[in-house]
């Protein structure tokens, strides 16, 4: 079975609260073992913390966890909040995938590399 890469526009998550955003990501990852999400905009450190906690609570025999990485400016900075208020798009992107599929995400400040495999 091939890998599905789903690109999600920032508008999709724009009006969600941080817990809703994290739940949305987890639900989408858990729905398909072959799906990688590429989300427009980077997660804030608080969102990332929430995502790790929620992932830990969701781990079972068939779901061993995720690999996640963000590049670009974190979405909670004053600058990005202002951009959001003015209706602009956040910078950066976030990649999330199930760890059963995404073995490693190597991160540089401005670059992400995914290693997949079963």
């Amino acid at each position: 079975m091939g890998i599905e890469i789903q690109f999600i526009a920032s508008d999709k998550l724009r009006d969600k609260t941080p817990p809703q955003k994290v739940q949305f990501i987890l639900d989408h990852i858990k729905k398909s073992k072959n799906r990688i999400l590429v989300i427009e905009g980077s997660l804030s450190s608080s969102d990332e913390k929430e995502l790790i906690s929620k992932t830990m609570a969701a781990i079972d025999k068939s779901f061993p966890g995720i690999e996640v990485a963000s590049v670009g400016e974190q979405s909670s900075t004053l600058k990005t909040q202002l951009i959001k208020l003015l209706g602009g798009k956040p910078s950066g992107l976030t990649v999330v995938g199930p760890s059963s599929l995404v073995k490693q995400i190597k991160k540089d400040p401005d670059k992400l590399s995914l290693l997949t495999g079963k």
Partner: protein
Amino acid sequence: MPFKQFFSWLKNLFGSRQSFSLGLYGNVNAGKSTLANRISKDWSGEEMSSVSEMPHETREVIKKERLAVKVDGKILTMNLLDMPGIATKVDYRDFIKRGMKLPEAQNRAKEATKGIIEAIKWLEHVDAAMLVMDSCEDPYTQVNITILGNLEARKIPVIIVANKIDKKNAKPERIKAAFPQHHLVEISALKGENMDKLYRAIAQYAKG
């Protein structure tokens, strides 16, 4: 010196707090428990954590309370917290590959996930933190970035500890290059190398 740092320095000088909590954070198998044991043994004569090559050996927060650390003639009293290693995945099959039986592996995985949640909750309660990194590994991991981001957001003082410098392939300079804005101490918790530098850094940066 910015005003906040100056104020923090003044507080350090006059010892505004009787004791403070210092959390040891980091990826799995970065050497947090080895470091906790080294600090605990240096100042109380006894170890505090169990150490193993098996990932997720520490699955709950282990505390050593009121540890008196003497630095340059001054006594710092701290509650040392050895946190479970933070990860984004915990697969029981990894424990089976390392020789565990299925029920034991599943139980360890379950305990490990709970430990990670507990460690994350503690991010909001520690007074200071040491982010321990394995000098042989890529430091630019999402876990390290997430921990640092949350500590910075709460203005919790943090020292980056480049551990395992006794290993041949250690490259602590990679850690320095990845996080140049933070104070970094290169140590070997196993061999006790540079521990004096670490204690000075705790006195200088962590005791807010």
